[in-house]
């Protein structure tokens, strides 16, 4: 098929183009290689026309018109389109310049697409429909071919459905956006596609009058398929084994590389910082502690990549640990966290977590020099209990002036507003403990 290699269009960068360049390897002189992709964005069918348009730097409507013209020439357009669809990989190309894809865009194309995208699209669609009608009408007049037309159309539609499906699956594996509805939709679509093809084939056979020999044909077909399976079976099994082994090796290598990268990024970096700050004992301790926690998370979390720290915590345990980690990093005081049980966060618990965080900050600020701050959280049935305890100097609760709102508002007030309780225990010299109790909203 003469479709895979990119077609030369513009003058200067043509020389650098290779047959199958990898996308990531840009040549040394800076001129990017361009490779033909079908467009994943804004496509009508397979993204062939848009991909070509982006590649050639012409408006997509032109490409569609050309295909249409070829379609009228005895259906050559369909064949060509199908061939492109099968052999050209799905990628990013032919999109207007609104998207930051400088690799595949020429500036003028982008501007054009930006100006009149809708008109062009409509025009192309209309032209396509008219062309198809003309094509069909043409066939109809010839009479004999008419009997094969509808089965062929059915088969074509089924194939199109299934092939678009394959594209979507590939896209989903890149973008990883998937929902249950979508999957259901995909299954339905695949079934419809298969059904269409099956119906088309059946009608084809009926039309040809070979329905009578259907049994014979089927037997023969099954016999042939079984024979091929027997012959090729061992070889196929062997090949799939080799493939899976190779894949395992590759995954292992990737994992090792990832570990190396992580260690390089975090541990070596921290060690350098520690070397540089060797005189500042507090800073060294803080760095080491932060690093230890991160590494521990990364190593012992089942699917941990150590890079999800920015995500909002979804459960109580995560929330407590995250708050503690942040306070620890910020104030340089170690916090020992113990969490028993776990449950999803609701609004009341989020408020409780904010109060707990405030308590941790207080403990780190005022009680940090007496040793590590102990944070304990427990989910016991419907009740959630959090205790934050420091061994600092402590204070006399009654002597706190009325204008100091930290404890009163952030902790006690917040808990009460949300239907929980907060209890403070403190005595000079004995440290301070904040106990928070909150009922869970749901069962």
């Amino acid at each position, binding site marked *: 098929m003469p479709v895979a290699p990119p077609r030369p269009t513009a003058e200067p960068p043509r020389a650098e183009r290779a047959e199958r360049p990898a996308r990531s390897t840009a040549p040394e002189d800076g001129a990017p290689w361009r490779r033909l992709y079908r467009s994943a964005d804004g496509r009508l069918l397979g993204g062939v026309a848009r991909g070509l348009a982006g590649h050639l730097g012409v408006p997509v409507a032109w490409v569609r018109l050309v295909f249409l013209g070829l379609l009228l020439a005895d259906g050559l357009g369909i064949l060509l389109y199908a061939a492109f669809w099968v052999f050209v990989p799905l990628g990013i190309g032919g999109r207007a310049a609104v998207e930051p894809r400088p690799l595949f865009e020429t500036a003028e194309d982008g501007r054009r697409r930006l100006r009149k995208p809708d008109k062009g699209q409509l025009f192309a669609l209309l032209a396509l429909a008219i062309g198809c009608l003309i094509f069909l009408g043409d066939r109809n007049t010839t009479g004999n071919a008419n009997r094969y037309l509808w089965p062929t159309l059915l088969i074509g539609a089924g194939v199109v459905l299934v092939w678009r499906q394959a594209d979507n699956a590939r896209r989903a594996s890149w973008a990883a956006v998937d929902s249950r509805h979508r999957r259901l939709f995909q299954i339905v679509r695949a079934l419809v596609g298969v059904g269409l093809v099956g119906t088309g084939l059946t009608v084809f056979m009926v039309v040809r009058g070979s329905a009578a020999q259907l049994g014979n044909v089927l037997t023969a077909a099954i016999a042939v398929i079984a024979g091929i399976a027997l012959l090729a079976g061992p070889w196929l099994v062997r090949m799939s084994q080799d493939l899976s082994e190779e894949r395992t090796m590759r995954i292992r290598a990737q994992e090792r590389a990832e570990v190396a990268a992580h260690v390089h990024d975090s541990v070596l970096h921290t060690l350098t910082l520690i070397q540089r700050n060797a005189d500042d004992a507090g800073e060294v301790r803080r760095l080491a502690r932060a690093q230890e926690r991160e590494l521990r998370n990364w190593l012992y979390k089942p699917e941990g990549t150590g890079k999800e720290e920015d995500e909002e915590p979804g459960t109580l345990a995560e929330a407590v640990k995250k708050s503690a980690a942040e306070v620890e990093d910020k104030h340089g005081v170690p916090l020992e966290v113990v969490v028993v049980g776990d449950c999803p966060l609701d609004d009341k618990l989020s408020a409780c977590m904010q109060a707990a965080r405030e308590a941790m900050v207080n403990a780190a600020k005022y009680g940090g020099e007496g040793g590590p701050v102990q944070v304990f959280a*427990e989910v016991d049935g419907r009740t959630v209990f959090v205790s934050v305890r420091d061994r600092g100097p402590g204070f006399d609760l009654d002597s706190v002036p009325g204008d100091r709102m930290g404890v009163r508002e952030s902790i006690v007030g917040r808990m009460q507003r949300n239907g929980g309780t907060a209890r403070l225990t403190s005595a000079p010299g004995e440290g301070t403990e904040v106990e928070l109790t909150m009922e869970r909203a749901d069962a």
Partner: protein
Amino acid sequence: MTSQQAGQTGPAGEDTGGPERRVRVVLVDDHRMFRTGVQAEIGRTEATGVEVVGEAADVDQAVTVITATRPEVVLLDVHLPGGGGVEVLRRCAPLMGTAERPVRFLALSVSDAAEDVIGVIRGGARGYVTKTITGTDLVDSIFRVQEGDAVFSPRLAGFVLDAFASTDAPPIDEDLDRLTQREREVLRLIARGYAYKEIAKQLFISVKTVESHVSAVLRKLQLSNRHELTRWATARRLI
């Protein structure tokens, strides 16, 4: 972690009864640097009362050294070449049971993952501390273990609470496998960072009672092996 904390180990020796108390210790850890560090931290016998009588770097060595020297306490790393700390505990099980001068194990590890902790405790270790522990606390823990008490860090107490909370123990043997209300209370206070003394004050009981509660928890934890085994076998359709 050297000069600063080494200075603190002096008072610790006095706290635990002065240098006239002696305990013989074997260090098991596959990192020589770490053994050297611990040795430097706690091994000055006159000050701390701890006498390091042997070291080992893997499971086989550990079993040999422990059998030969018969220490009172073994500081045991959880991750070791040759099967890990659990394997050492398994092979040294006869030594733990002897009536006079039993060998007691204190696990010492960087990992505070639940399966490591529960694993060695079930294997028979009398306590579990992490490597971030200070020299003072380590010496204290060693003496505690030597006297037959359990050493529970807050984190360990949390794991135990968690393990028992999520265990749907069968109704038979309930008294054996379930923690009593009091034991749970004690564990909860340990998890909250209270010292044994403070727990005693809080619950209006004596320190000795607290310690016996903790030991009971430890005993139950080891005995719950049976159910663990049953569950394991059922899960794999062996029974």
